[in-house]
């Protein structure tokens, strides 16, 4: 399949490489030309703009930072829509507000372009291994057309519902993981400050109803004090902000998410933004009187 890929950062680059390895014909565009080079070396074709990229492919995928970037590459000057290619499927795999995804979908549809919101979970590790979870919102027909591309970069691929549904699922994912990391950090800090070995507490909890993948993986990295990212705190802060904005728009009471969002604010504000989100343990220790 002929695929165009926009945004070649930490996530986008390995995803694009997996599309190449999956036998797809790939064209790429990135804001910084030098980030295209590794893909060109691997056999991808470079494009001069998102519009030029869209002209020669059946499917365009974007993996960028935030909603304004998606709007720019899809609907901006020399953006995907300006190629005027009706029948194209555009897929955004960034994490943005559901309302923003729905608005982009509606405007692209006016140009005859089908849009899927398809954010991922699994981090850089999942992107490199091609084992991402992909949560998709949009029409079933567009989903079927994009499926061969998804199959090259992900494993757990779920068509959640109409436009925006993928981003809603991602926001829900970030609530569970954001709160989960904080919960595990609180429990392990509580154990340690109560004079009990947190490693044994983790082991005991793994066998019961407190078991979770976060307790297993993130919990271990907390014990190892390995705070290298992984998933950077500032990104989770951004995602919790999406959750809180959506709660405001919808009139939803999310007290636990609200408390969690404030802890991520404190992480970014106190200089832990570039560390993995498990560094929330350091913040808790600091707020609990430990020297760290």
């Amino acid at each position: 399949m002929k695929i165009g890929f926009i945004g070649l950062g930490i996530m986008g680059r390995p995803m694009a490489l997996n599309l190449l390895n999956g036998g797809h014909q790939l064209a790429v565009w990135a804001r910084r030309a030098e980030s295209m080079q590794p893909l060109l070396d691997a056999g991808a074709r470079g494009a001069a703009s998102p519009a030029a990229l869209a002209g020669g492919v059946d499917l365009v995928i974007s993996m960028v930072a935030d909603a304004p970037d998606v709007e720019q590459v899809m609907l901006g000057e020399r953006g995907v829509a300006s190629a005027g290619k009706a029948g194209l499927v555009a897929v955004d795999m960034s994490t943005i507000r559901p309302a923003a995804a729905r608005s982009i979908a509606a405007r692209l549809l006016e140009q005859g372009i089908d849009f899927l919101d398809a954010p991922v979970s699994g981090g850089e590790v999942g992107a490199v291994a091609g084992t991402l979870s992909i949560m998709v919102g949009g029409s079933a027909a567009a989903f079927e057309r994009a499926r061969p591309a998804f199959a090259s970069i992900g494993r757990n691929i779920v068509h959640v519902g109409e436009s925006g549904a993928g981003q809603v699922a991602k926001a829900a994912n970030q609530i569970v993981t954001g709160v989960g990391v904080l919960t595990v950090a609180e429990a392990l800090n509580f154990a340690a400050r109560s004079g009990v070995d947190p490693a044994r507490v983790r082991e005991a909890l793994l066998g019961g109803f407190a078991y979770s993948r976060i307790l297993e993986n993130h919990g271990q990295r907390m014990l190892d004090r390995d705070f290298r990212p992984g998933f950077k705190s500032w990104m989770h802060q951004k995602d919790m902000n999406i959750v809180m904005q959506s709660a405001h728009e919808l009139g939803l009471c999310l007290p636990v998410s609200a408390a969690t969002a404030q802890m991520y604010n404190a992480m970014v504000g106190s200089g832990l933004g570039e560390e993995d989100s498990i560094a929330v343990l350091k913040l808790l220790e600091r707020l609990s009187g430990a020297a760290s």
Partner: protein
Amino acid sequence: MRVGFIGLGVMGRPMAGHLLAAGHDLAVWARRPAAAAPLVDAGAVGCATPAAVADRCEVVFTMLTAGSDVEQVVFGRDGLDAGLVVGSIVVDMSSIAPETARSLARRLAARGVDMLDAPVSGGEQGALAASLSIMVGGPKRALDRVRPLFERLATTIVHVGESGAGQVAKVCNQMVMVGTLQAIAEALHFARCAGADAHRVRLALAGGSAASRVLEVMGGKMVERDFVAGVEARLHHKDYAVVLDEAHRRGLPMPVSAQVSQQLNALMAMGLGRCDSAALLRVLEAGSR
């Protein structure tokens, strides 16, 4: 002085009325012409567009709901921008995000127009009684010119700092006020559920360290179960989006404000947005036996 006033709602109408009563030459514009009628009847000039207001005035006040409304009135089609001249002053008394206020001030300064962000506290009561508090951000030279007008509206006028500083002070005001309101709702709800008379508990608290204006006014409304607005809760809900956005943008933990915002979300979901924020009590009641 030739003064313009845009936005003639619950707050703007009495404020504009005070300026007219003080003998200023007042020009007005409102989205709904009916809102301007009482002032026009009292002697103000009704204009067809914001641009026409700016064209005939030295100082133009705006009193609107959201930042996007202010941007629209200033820089939209037939906006103030089309009528302002070098030396004009724009005074925005709406409560909007500090960042929006700074951006508007920058754009106006580029064409020789000073802007003050001058949000108020005191509600409809304060607007009617001309006893508002005004928190001002922007150049001192502009405040010096506008101060005689402010004195017709307010008993407290504080120049907080440069552009945006007035809005920062307003955000702080909302955090303290609505946070206190939530605490009082919880205390009075607790009192009643624990078998004490909420009315007497409020009287007891009013004499001690827990005394506050909010306990007096909103606490009073809670015990009387009078949820008719004063300030509509939906406006506080709007303000809290600014509070949480500032916390996010600056990487600041604001745990209490975050919880208050969730109670306001619940209040909106219960359809109480047009009630007074004293209705935060009803959100607590909905989650209790």
